[in-house]
């Protein structure tokens, strides 16, 4: 037999002639070595690489040029996997697993594993383009910014700032998110929003109104400690594959895994129990479980008594949901329902995971609240292994939500009212009146804008129907694929009616091909997330620092640079970047994060300084993979990347909060009670915790959120440092000066004297601090409480003295009440609280005494400010179960924010004869969101080459459809032509479509409209072209999981 050539031998010439040379594709190797990417500058360098390889006479391993290594964060989903990127000569040449990351431990899904392609970017948008007479024309950046800027200014002049919709992105870093919201504010509109609106806005609203914060309570890793795991309307195996590392480990540790879905998903294949539910029937299912739990006395009574408000109303609602009724509404057999209830009751702590199967619904907020309440009933909140683990969507959708890329709140959920604007005005070092002057009116400044799900209505509605001076004239899609929004034909009409469409994205997106405008559309190439540094918040609230891997390729520019240039062109860059260094057009991410640290007291981004985050990333290997706590090093005791809230200033060193609402730990070590968010009393019932407090709390019972008055009453006010006092007084007196952040200790006393002087001279300050809160979480004016302080002692009979002192002090200077004119300075100081104190002193002192800055309240099982106080089941607008309508019909038509929102009038029309099948949608593991980025990645695109619809064999047989054949999926809105996948994954009567495709429009080929060289590899119909009307009554989340359709052979 042949003896193989063995020992190492001299390298062959790099580009030798000969038979093996012939088919060598230069490009792919050069691509790797950088010639085609880095442009001319790289040629010398990588030419050197080739030369080195040739010069090697002696075989040696040294001919591998040293690559620099950068740790970055995967740009796709919210699990937040770390990636090692190896960069040689400015080109990303290798991707290595980061075993030391406590979250992914080196693992990836298809997308993460194919991340490097982003940097090669063959199908990237390569330079600015505009649509001119129906053709794409190349522009320079200067020209593009100039033309867009002029057009925006014209629209502003003619129609006001609210005629522009700024759609941001969950792909933004925290810094970019923050800058984007600030940019919209300085432009003068609240018409700013991002994908969270259409992925988890109902979660944020529902959960925040139940527990206090709208975020995943525990961590991915913590699921390993669960005894039961129930996933409702989620498919982590495809949407968050790396989370399955932890979920499956939990299962292997003995947890029972239950998957509730209309579709037998890849996740369901691993479940102990798969529950096939009728799309949209989740609330009934959960109340059915609750009823069985109550009937058998399996609820956690102690927990409900101590820490939950309003459970009686839930009991009452649940009592209607007999097993028969649950089966009638959801199709789940009684035995199975009973088995699940028993499993959940007997296997505690259990975690509940949900995703868009729950959220994307007209009653999304009801569903998320019902799920939260179910966990409360079981006592699963605030314990390791329990929690409501809501897997967010994009890599930084949590951070972008937290930092307010949202039409109804400012960064950190401060809301939109005057107090909130003043707070951020102080942080931004901008005068409130100047800010106000940017807006069309104070009313519009404080009114939520048009959400992303409704932008087309913002363009198309007019006059009476619209609560702003003019309809939208310009829409900016910044990292936002329009095929993620429903109602294709309406979107198309809206594009036509717009004066200006701007797409800022690394890829052209569906907007470029389906908007078919002759003029007035611009495509600007932005860098990907891997081409800029910054922090990103993953789903379990860990704020990871993402290093820049490479410079933006081609003519792309980093998002932060583009926004700086826009601000510059529109004339407010100096205001916007007052305290942020800008280096050659790129704002410093560290400076931006420091500014964020200075204002985000509500949710505790304040402790997450760039320095701390970078230290965490460098010492990833010190974090325990289950508790996420560091052992040793400079970060000893910290939790991985400071899961928010990380209270106080960075100097305070709060370790972050790995589990929300966990009272077994002191607040200083990451413990928390429920947030006392809604005052102390509602309808005569106590809203504060009873007989429950975090470990080490000096008040051994419930207490309201912390104010200066409380610290004063408890005798702790003198623990505030001079600087803290100065800043508190300055905030109270509306005399805050930005330099107080950086003032030396010596200057503090002088400044304090000057401040006192100034206040004395002008006794009546005009503004008022205080009353700030996010609108999703907003307690309406009739909420909160107006209890006179002297009634506190009788209302809270069993509370210890210091608790009563605190409650009385809180009620005295009640921040829930509107401030009045002529309030004295000391009253104003008394009302400064943990959210408005820019020094962090209030938080620091409270935590020093074991108190949570946001108080110690009860979770709310009912939300009296929402349309449905108790979460109710209501049928989707398009339902084929007309028999359920009398009992479970939807809301009356109403106005939500600036637009009419239809419910009853849509549901009244019966489509069930014409469209008998239920249509639901979801994700594929290879693609993300609108899919432009991933469909342009050949490594991913190859694995899903066709848009398809999953159809049950029975329905397929009825319609004469064969596996693999073309079918029309028609809805009342439109129809899409897709390939049929006949499978038992979906039950009879249900059709499933993935939503990542674009490039076809109702059977028409549109992909030839992509700009040259920027066409994704794979095309198909966008599912949302045919998705129907329907918006959540609280957050305007679109309905995509339960509508009607018909399938027919194409």
């Amino acid at each position: 037999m042949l003896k193989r050539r063995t020992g190492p031998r001299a390298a062959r010439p790099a580009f030798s002639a000969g038979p093996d040379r012939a088919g060598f594709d230069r490009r792919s190797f050069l691509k790797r070595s950088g010639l085609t990417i880095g442009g001319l500058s790289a040629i010398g360098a990588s030419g050197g690489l080739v030369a080195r390889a040739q010069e090697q006479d002696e075989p040696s391993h040294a001919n591998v040029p040293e690559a620099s290594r950068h740790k970055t964060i995967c740009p796709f989903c919210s699990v937040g996997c770390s990636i090692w990127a190896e960069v040689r000569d400015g080109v990303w040449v290798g991707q290595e697993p980061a075993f030391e990351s406590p979250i992914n431990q080196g693992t990836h899904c298809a997308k993460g594993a194919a991340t490097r392609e982003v940097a090669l970017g063959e199908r990237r948008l390569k330079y600015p383009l505009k649509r001119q007479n129906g053709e794409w024309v190349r522009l320079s950046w200067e020209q593009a910014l100039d033309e867009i800027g002029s057009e925006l200014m014209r629209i502003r002049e003619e129609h006001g700032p609210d005629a522009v919709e700024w759609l941001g992105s969950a792909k933004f870093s925290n810094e970019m998110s923050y800058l984007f919201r600030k940019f919209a504010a300085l432009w003068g509109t609240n018409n700013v929003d991002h994908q969270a609106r259409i992925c988890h806005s109902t979660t944020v609203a529902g959960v925040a109104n139940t527990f206090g914060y709208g975020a995943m309570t525990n961590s991915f890793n913590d699921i390993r400690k669960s005894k039961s795991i129930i996933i409702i309307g989620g498919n982590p195996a495809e949407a968050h594959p790396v989370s399955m590392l932890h979920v499956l480990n939990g299962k292997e540790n003995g947890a029972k895994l239950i998957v509730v879905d209309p579709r037998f998903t890849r996740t369901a294949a691993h479940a102990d129990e798969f529950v096939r539910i009728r799309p949209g029937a989740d609330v009934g299912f959960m109340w059915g479980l609750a009823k069985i739990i109550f009937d058998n006395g399996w609820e956690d009574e102690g927990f409900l008594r101590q820490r939950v408000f309003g459970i009686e109303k839930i009991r009452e609602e649940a009592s209607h949901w007999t097993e028969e009724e649950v089966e009638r509404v959801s199709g789940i057999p009684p035995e199975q329902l009973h088995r699940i209830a028993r499993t959940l009751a007997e296997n505690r702590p259990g975690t509940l995971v949900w995703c868009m199967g729950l959220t994307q619904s007209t009653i999304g907020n009801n569903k998320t609240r019902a799920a939260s309440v179910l966990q409360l009933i079981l006592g699963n909140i605030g314990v390791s292994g329990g929690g409501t683990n809501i897997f967010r969507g994009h890599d930084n959708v949590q951070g972008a939500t937290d930092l307010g890329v949202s039409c109804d709140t400012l960064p950190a959920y401060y809301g939109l009212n005057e107090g909130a604007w003043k707070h951020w005005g102080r942080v931004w070092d901008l005068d409130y009146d100047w800010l106000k002057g940017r807006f069309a009116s104070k009313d519009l400044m404080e009114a939520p804008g048009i959400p992303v799900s409704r932008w087309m209505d913002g363009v198309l509605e007019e006059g009476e129907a619209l609560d702003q001076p003019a309809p939208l004239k310009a829409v900016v899609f910044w990292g936002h694929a329009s095929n993620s929004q429903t109602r294709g034909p309406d979107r198309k009409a809206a594009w036509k009616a717009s004066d200006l469409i701007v797409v800022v994205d690394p890829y052209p997106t569906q907007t470029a091909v389906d908007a078919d405008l002759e003029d007035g559309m611009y495509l600007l190439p932005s860098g990907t997330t891997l081409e800029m540094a910054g922090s990103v918040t993953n789903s379990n609230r860990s704020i990871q620092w993402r290093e820049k891997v490479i410079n933006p390729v081609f003519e792309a520019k980093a998002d932060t640079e583009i926004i700086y240039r826009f601000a510059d062109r529109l004339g407010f860059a100096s205001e916007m970047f007052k305290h942020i260094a800008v280096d050659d057009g790129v704002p410093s991410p560290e400076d931006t994060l420091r500014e964020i640290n200075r204002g985000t007291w509500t949710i505790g981004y304040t402790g997450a300084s760039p320095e701390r985050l970078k230290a965490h990333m460098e010492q990833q290997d010190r974090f325990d993979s289950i508790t996420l706590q560091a052992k040793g090093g400079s970060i000893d005791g910290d939790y991985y990347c400071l899961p928010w809230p990380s209270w106080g200033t960075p100097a305070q060193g709060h370790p972050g909060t790995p589990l929300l609402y966990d009272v077994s730990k002191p607040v200083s070590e990451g413990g928390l009670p429920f947030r006392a968010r809604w005052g102390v009393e509602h309808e005569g019932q106590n809203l504060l915790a009873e007989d429950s407090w975090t470990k080490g709390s000096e008040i051994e019972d419930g207490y309201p959120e912390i104010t200066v008055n409380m610290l004063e009453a408890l005798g702790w006010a003198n623990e505030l440092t001079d600087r803290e006092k100065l800043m508190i007084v300055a905030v109270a007196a509306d005399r805050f000066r930005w330099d107080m952040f950086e003032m030396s200790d010596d200057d503090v006393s002088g400044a304090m004297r000057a401040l006192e002087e100034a206040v004395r001279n002008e006794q009546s300050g005009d503004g008022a601090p205080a009353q700030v809160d996010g609108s999703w979480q907003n307690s309406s004016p009739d909420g909160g409480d107006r209890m006179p302080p002297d009634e506190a002692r009788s209302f809270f009979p069993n509370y210890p003295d210091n608790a009563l002192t605190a409650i009385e002090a809180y009620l005295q200077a009640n921040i829930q009440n509107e401030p009045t004119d002529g309030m004295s300075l000391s009253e104003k100081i008394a009302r400064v609280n943990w959210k408005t104190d820019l020094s962090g002193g209030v938080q620091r002192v409270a935590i020093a005494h074991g108190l949570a800055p946001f108080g110690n309240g009860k979770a709310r099982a009912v939300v009296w400010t929402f349309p449905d106080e108790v979460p109710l089941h209501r049928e989707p607008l398009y339902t084929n179960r007309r028999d359920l309508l009398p009992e479970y019909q939807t809301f009356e038509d109403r106005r939500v924010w600036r637009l009419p929102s239809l419910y009853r009038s849509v549901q009244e029309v019966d489509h069930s004869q014409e469209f008998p099948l239920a249509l639901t949608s979801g994700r594929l593991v290879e693609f993300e969101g609108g899919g432009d980025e991933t469909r342009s990645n050949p490594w991913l695109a190859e694995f899903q080459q066709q848009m398809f619809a999953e159809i049950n064999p029975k329905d397929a047989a009825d319609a004469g459809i064969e596996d693999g054949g073309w079918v029309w999926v028609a809805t009342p809105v439109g129809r899409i032509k897709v390939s049929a996948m006949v499978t038992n994954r979906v039950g009879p009567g249900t059709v499933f479509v993935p939503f990542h495709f674009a490039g076809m429009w109702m059977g028409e080929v549109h992909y030839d409209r992509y700009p040259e060289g920027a066409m994704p590899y794979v095309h198909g119909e966008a599912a949302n072209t045919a998705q129907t009307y329907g918006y959540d009554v609280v957050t305007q989340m679109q309905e995509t999981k339960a509508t009607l359709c018909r399938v027919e052979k194409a």
Partner: protein
Amino acid sequence: MKAFVTAVAVVGFSAVLTYVGLVTFDQSTAQRYEDGSVVLLDHPTSWEVD
């Protein structure tokens, strides 16, 4: 003799023709599965060494 020479010519000609045909109608694996909704890489595979 003439028959043999003719046969040589025919075989040779056919071989050349076949070669040209194969090269002309050559398809990569990827193209084989093209179905319209898939747009293939616009460069050849890096490993075609024939």
